[in-house]
């Protein structure tokens, strides 16, 4: 499976809840419909934060991975 084309990279490494989701909610308004944002975070809490964000906003997490303490999410704008 190949990754979708990333329209914007949002670096939230070092940031703590709720800043990654605050930034993501702003960034997602700045990309086209169906475009994908790649978000990087280091807070272990960001996993649950992103899942809540997906549930509440409808934007989709289309990919996620974790390596060496960095959480990587691909979020597709859905509305």
């Amino acid at each position, binding site marked *: 499976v190949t990754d979708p084309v990333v329209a914007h990279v949002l670096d939230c490494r070092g940031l*703590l809840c709720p800043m990654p989701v605050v930034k993501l909610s702003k960034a997602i308004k700045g990309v086209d419909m169906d475009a994908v944002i790649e978000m990087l975070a280091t807070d272990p809490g960001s996993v649950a934060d992103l899942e809540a964000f997906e549930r509440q906003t409808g934007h989709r997490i289309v990919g996620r991975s974790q390596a060496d303490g960095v959480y990587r999410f691909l979020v597709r704008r859905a509305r």
Partner: protein
Amino acid sequence: MLGRVLREQYHLLFGRPWSIWGAALLLGALNVFLFAFDRPWTASDGARNWGDWLFQALGLIERVDLVPPWLYSGSVLNLGLLTGALASALLSREFAVRVAPSGELAKGAFGGFLMGAGAVLAFGCNIGGFFSATSALSLSGLAMMLGLALGAYAGIRYLLWEVEHWPVLSRGRSFSAGGARGEGPGAQPWLGGALLAVLVIALPWAYGRAGYVPQAGFLLFGVAFGVLFQRSRFCLVRAFREPFFTGEGDHARAGALALTLSMIGFTILKFTDLKDRGEWVFPGFWVGGLAGGILFGLGMTLAGGCGAGSIWRAGEGHVKLWCAVALFAVGASSVRLLLAETGLLRKLGAAVFLPSAIGWGGAVGLVVLAMAAWYLFAAWNERTRVFSAM
């Protein structure tokens, strides 16, 4: 075979997050056990003890009755919370020293100071002044609850404004060190296991040998809180903030249920005269509770952790919360001194023990009603997103 079973159980406990509902109910129950053992839980009096101790060491105050941090109940609870979360983060390979951009560190420190000041006005942090005080049927707890909601609302509106108009504050250099790397388990779980053994076996034994049996108990309670919070990430900041942000209501509903459970336990202990009825009933209705709640709610939203949340996340390695905890201690100690000097500490409101005003049934009913309202508000708002910012 045994090795496989152990690996499975390790993965169950430290390979995936715990249910926030289970954790919230356990926290409510543990708070009752702690009250039965000695005193309810709060993070702020331990933090104030650290601040007092710092000021004494710097020669700014002179107090002969100051109990050292390794013996003071609230401080030992906090130290257990911090080190328990550290052990838990290591066991889960989630520990790393994470340095946020400098603007974030400043926000952590400022939020921490607001939390310290708010905790003085409300006679406790969100745990002691709200969760435990409401459990103890003190009306000041409900005043603080209202303040916390207002403060969290103001805080999240500010953060949303900040990323639009002052984005540089949360940008900049950040780095982390000491985190787990690669695919294998690495050294962290072994270090965490060793630390946990020291915390729950060696140190309680040493306290007991030295004649400090209660302190051994406080340490164990603190460690249990730390592990529970780190594994579940149950968070009272989220409970107050998220309805005004994403609209997510899980933590608010779990918090309402935990407080109801804790309140029932406290009520039994007081009703049966096993504990003094005036305990944890604070003269903070309504000015102190409300004003303290607003300051505290704003501070915890800026810092990204409440009284307990800042301490356990500091144990997980977030430097922003090291700043928050340090200024929480300084704020709690200095503002308390200021209010005591000026006599304002006695002008923060009335001490209202609800059963004295409206009877035991009325008191329990009122707290249940307030919690049900919080629960339903969170559930309704999660669906309708009327108050959410999304």
